[in-house]
């Protein structure tokens, strides 16, 4: 593997998506999206969010994910801070048809993984060219 040093990616705050009633910052999670023949997979970094606090909503082609952090009092006094804990929110518009009954969501080590299987109609079909 090539040597590559990780840098801190400054967390981006969500810009005005309707105000939250909770007084916590809302961040945009870093996301990987990849597509295979059968499914669209979405991977999002949401450190500090337990699986039961993740909300995923698919409304027609609008996919919304929200992670709500359980705010707890920081122990002692802060002497050095490089990040702030907060909620995560992101919305995507999906292009291909998704088989909603088969959507799978899992969470591991603060990383959300969503597998959105494509509906039969949206799967690629190989077109054979017939020569006459």
């Amino acid at each position, binding site marked *: 593997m090539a*040597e*590559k*040093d*990780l*840098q*801190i*990616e*400054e967390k981006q*705050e969500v*810009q005005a998506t309707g105000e939250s009633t909770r007084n916590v*910052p809302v961040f945009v999670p*870093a*996301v*990987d*999206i*990849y*597509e*295979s*023949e059968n499914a669209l*997979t979405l*991977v999002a*970094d*949401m*450190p*500090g*969010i*337990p699986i039961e606090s993740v909300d995923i909503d698919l409304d027609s082609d609008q996919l919304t994910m929200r992670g709500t952090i359980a705010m707890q009092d*920081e*122990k*002692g*006094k*802060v*002497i*050095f*801070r*490089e*990040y*702030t804990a907060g909620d995560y929110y992101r919305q995507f518009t999906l292009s291909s048809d998704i088989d909603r009954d088969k959507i799978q969501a899992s*969470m*591991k*080590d*603060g*990383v959300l993984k969503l597998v959105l299987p494509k509906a039969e109609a949206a799967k690629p079909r190989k077109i054979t060219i017939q020569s006459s």
Partner: protein
Amino acid sequence: MAIFRYPNWRWPEIPGALEDFERARRQMDRLLSVFTGGVSNPTSSGVFPPLLVTEDENTIYVEAEIPGIKAEDLDISVVGRTLTLSGERKPEEAQNVNYHRRERKWGSFRKALTLPEDVNADAVRAECKNGVLKLVLPKPEQVKPRKITIKSE
């Protein structure tokens, strides 16, 4: 490897003051980012992982956001006052896929932090939950504050 030296000054002890400053800073950053096109945290060392260090009388607490890093890919050591975190964030192995977005970063990291006080290295506890590492570093007896009672004759 980058060494971050803990600053010598301290925030005044007003409850919530730091949070207010932090909020003000974020709002200011957002305003300024219009001109600069993105800003970075002035107190950030820029080295992964981002840390949050707090302390009370008996303990120093260090938290780090390390989403997607397994406990076995992480090395934590304390030598004297230097806490070192190193490890690797591995890319996800997905084959025969087309990427639409690739925002999550991967690679190796080494970060050293000079702790403000000595810690009892044998009693350090580490816990990793939901992608957040929590370290509890107890201070040794000799640096804990002691109450001195005044005897009156």
